[in-house]
Structure formats: C-alpha cells, structure tokens
C-alpha cells in the first residue's frame, strides 16, 4: 500500500525527484517460480549446514581434550603388604578398586556396583559390601547376594612385575557370570 501511495505522490509532482530509496522499488523483478525454488534450495542447504555444524560441535564436546582419569594400570605394592582375609581400602579413592587377599591369593574388585554404578561401602562387622543406593549386597568374593544387583562385582587383571610388585590393570576385567574368574590373571596366587 505504502508503495503505491508514494508512486502517486511522485507522479503528482513531476518537478521533484523521488527519494533515492523509492526509485529502487521499480527495479525489483517479480519472483519467478524457478528462482523461488533455487533460493529455497540454497536456504535449506544453509540451514542443514548450520545445523550439521552445530551438532558436530555438540558431538565434539563429548570427546574432551583432557581426561582427568587416574591411570588404568598401577603398581599396588608387594603381596606381603596385604593381610590374609582383609579387604584393603587404600586404593579405593584413587583407583576405584578393593584389593583382597584370601588363602588362595590376591584379587582386585571393582568398586562399581553392578546395579546402577554407585560405590558400595565395605562393612567390616557384617563382612559384606553394601550399596547405599538400592541396597545391593556383595560377599567379600564379590558375589552378589542381596538387593537388586543382577551380577557379581567385576574383577581386574592382577599380575606380578619383575621386581615383585603387584600390577593391577583395570583395562582388563573378569566377570564371574561369564566364567572368567577362573582365568589365571583374575587372581594372583601367592
């Protein structure tokens, strides 16, 4: 509407030049069907590219540059540092493992509950691991016996270094329900 009005006012007074902005309105070509579609395609491509770039950035975010994780393989002292029949808590905070020695040998238990991943507590008087989140309970061996945990705690690879120290490798795990606890590396005979 405004355009038409301005045109009229321009023709009414021929001696006056129309304003610069108004003169441009005459040169605009009508949008053809073909050009509409090509612009639409360009628009969609731009949109897809921007969205794609955005989600690539989001995806990149899931792979951080630095991981503040403790090393997965560590030396855990000499076998004699561990008393028979006791659950050793000294590596729990740093590496998330319990090291337990019984008559047969030494094994390493993961501190991650097999139900939903909380950290159970070792209750000395009850001789069991008890998870505070849903009440799963595990024997000293790691076998689940109460609460909802569907499978036993996982064990990690344990070997002896040349100097006689224990080496725990958390990258290799042994699951009881798969029959892996019989693996020679799941328990260190001493």
């Amino acid at each position, binding site marked *: 509407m405004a355009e038409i009005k301005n045109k009229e006012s321009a023709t009414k007074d021929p001696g006056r030049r129309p304003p610069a902005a108004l003169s441009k309105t005459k040169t605009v070509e009508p949008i053809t069907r073909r050009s509409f579609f090509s612009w639409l395609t360009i628009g969609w491509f731009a949109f897809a590219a921007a969205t794609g770039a955005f989600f690539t950035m989001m995806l990149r975010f899931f792979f951080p540059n630095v991981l503040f994780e403790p090393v997965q393989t560590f030396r855990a002292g000499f076998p004699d540092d561990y008393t028979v029949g006791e659950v050793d808590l000294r590596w*729990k905070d740093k590496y998330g493992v319990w090291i337990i020695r019984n008559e047969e040998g030494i094994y390493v238990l993961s501190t991650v509950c097999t139900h939903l991943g*909380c950290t159970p*507590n070792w209750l000395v008087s009850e001789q069991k691991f008890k998870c505070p*989140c*849903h009440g799963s309970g595990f024997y000293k061996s790691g076998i689940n016996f109460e*609460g*909802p945990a*569907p499978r036993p705690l996982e064990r990690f690879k344990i070997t002896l270094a040349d100097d006689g120290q224990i080496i725990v490798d958390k990258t290799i795990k042994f699951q009881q329900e*798969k029959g892996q606890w019989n693996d020679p590396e799941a328990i260190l005979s001493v």
Partner: protein
Amino acid sequence: MESFKHLIDTISNPTILFTATFLIFFFIFPINDWFDKWNRRLKLYGLWSKKSMLIVTFIMVAFYIVGLSDPDFRLIMLKPDNVPISGLIYLVYFFTWLSMHQAYENDARIERGEPLDEQYDAPNDKVLVWPDLVYIEFISLILCSAFLLIWSISLPAPIEEPANPTESPNPAKAPWYFLGLQEMLVYFDPWMAGVVLPMLIIVGLMAIPYLDNERSGSGYYSFKNRKLSIGLFMFGWLVLWNMLIIVGTILRGPNWNFFGPFEYWDIHKLEALTNINFSEFVYIKWLNTGLPDNIILREIWGLLVLLGYFLILPPLLAKTALKKLFARLGSFRYSIFIVLILIALTLPMKMYLRWIFNLKYIVSIPEYFFNF
C-alpha cells in the same frame, strides 16, 4: 508416647503397611459393585464429607506436630530435601478429597435431577477470557511464585562436598520426585525399572483416552459411572506412585534398609536379605539338583511363569472375571488395557515376593542383561 511411636514404627514395616493399604484401598475407591456395596454398608463414602476432611487434616497435622518432638522424626522430616514431601502428603490428600467430594456431590445432584455443579449459565452464551477464564490462574501464578521465592530463600538447598565417584552418600537418595522410581529399582533390573517401566507409565497415561470409552460421567467430576477407571487410576497414582515416594523418603535409611519414622538410623542395622532367583528355588530348593548350565533349561520355569502371566491370564480373565469389561472394550482395547494393568501389578507382586520369599528375579539371564 514411646509405645505409640513403637506402634507407628511397627506398622511402618513395608509388608504390614502395604498389605493394609491394599486391603483397605478398593473399599475406599470401589472398582466394582461388590466393593461399592461394602463401601455403602461401611459408610466409607463419608470420608469425602467436609467434616471428615477437617478431622483427617487435624489428625495429620497433630501427628506431624507431636512427631516433631522426636529427634529421629525431626531429622527426617525437616531435612530440606524432605520438606516437599510433607507438603505433598497434605496436598495430595486435599486434592483427592476435593475431587471425590465434588464427584459425590455431582452424583447426588444427578440423582435429584438438578444441574451439575460445573454448570455455568453464561449470559449470551459468551465468556470473556479476561477475567473469566484466567483470573484465578493469574492470582495463583503470582502467589506460587512468591511462595517459591520465599521458600528458596528461607530454606537453602544443602550444599554438600564436591562430587566424588568413589564415595556415595549413605543413603544415596534421588530427588524426591524420583524416589518412587528408586524404590522400583530395588525390585527390578535397572533397565526394566529405569527405562521400560517409566516409559510404560507414560504410554499408559497417553492411552487412557483411547482405552476408556465410557461416555457417561465424562467431562465433569463424577464417580458413580466411572468406578473402575477412577479406582484403577487412583491405585496407580496414590499407591504405586505417591506412596512409594513417601516410603522412599521417610522409611529408607542407611544401606537402603527400612526404618520406621521414629527409628534411629543405625548404619549397622543388620537385615538378612539373602536373595535367590526363581531358578534357584526350582533347582536347588525343590528339585535338589544343581543349576543346569544351559541358560534356557535354567530359566525355562521363570519364562513359563511369565508367559502364563502375560499370555494365558488375559484370555482367562476375559472369559471369567472381566467378561463385561471385555465385551465393552473389544479384544484390541482389552489386550492393551490388561497388559498395562498386569505390568503395573508386577510391581507390588515383586515387592511382596522380595519381602516374603527373598525372591530376586523370576527370570534371570545376567549373561544377556535380561532380568525380570
């Protein structure tokens, strides 16, 4: 006083608490004519009168105030995380009462041939959006915002030590609105209780308008014609959702053991809870043979129980107890309805099986992450 607290602690034992609830519930919310008959005979509908509301509210407030004199009760109830639960108990009660009160009121009006309570005779059949439709909402919005603001300032959220993956607080509780789900996780495998069942709750709620094709009594508060719908919904909402939240908040203590509301949270409370799977019941307790190595052979009994429950029970019920319902819903609607109901009922069933028989899973195939 001590004996009263002891009594409360005793009936807070989940087996007693839930059994009592299940026994009473359908007399208060009758789902069929038989329950309705007893509801009338025992005059339980009197619960929805104004006088009852005042009495029940008074008892609940008095219990709360008297209870606060006990240090253990005070510790649980006044924890900043748990304060909303006190509000929830009163609010859920009040709104349940309000809707049931209006429903019975409308039922009585229909019987007397009077117009409904909701009937609104607008002049010229026209209603203004402002103020007629949004005035109350607007006031509520302002009041709620003010209330939340004051609450959040006066009762700050407890800031705890930095998160540490190797140290879980004991007990480690979810936010209060998830405590029902956390309670469910005690009885089910994580992917069942954490993924499948919550999804089915949502799917089930979405399915309600398609399953409930009863026209009469729809669109206004009423109870008489919608006994089954309201009774079942209230059971899911009040017992399986709100009550589990309250149990998870108030009755769960260290090591996720049960504690009465007046009981000291003893970390060393010893409860023998050695759970066994159904396969171990069959092969070790009853047949006295070891567990077979073959997974299928080991779990066949549990699978048969589940198949019977989900495939044989529904047609059986359609032929017998739920004959009328089956005729009304048709086979497609009925199948969806009954499967949803049966799945919902596995929760209380599994709770009882755990409490009474220490049964962990009916089907347990940890090798392939399938436990039920």
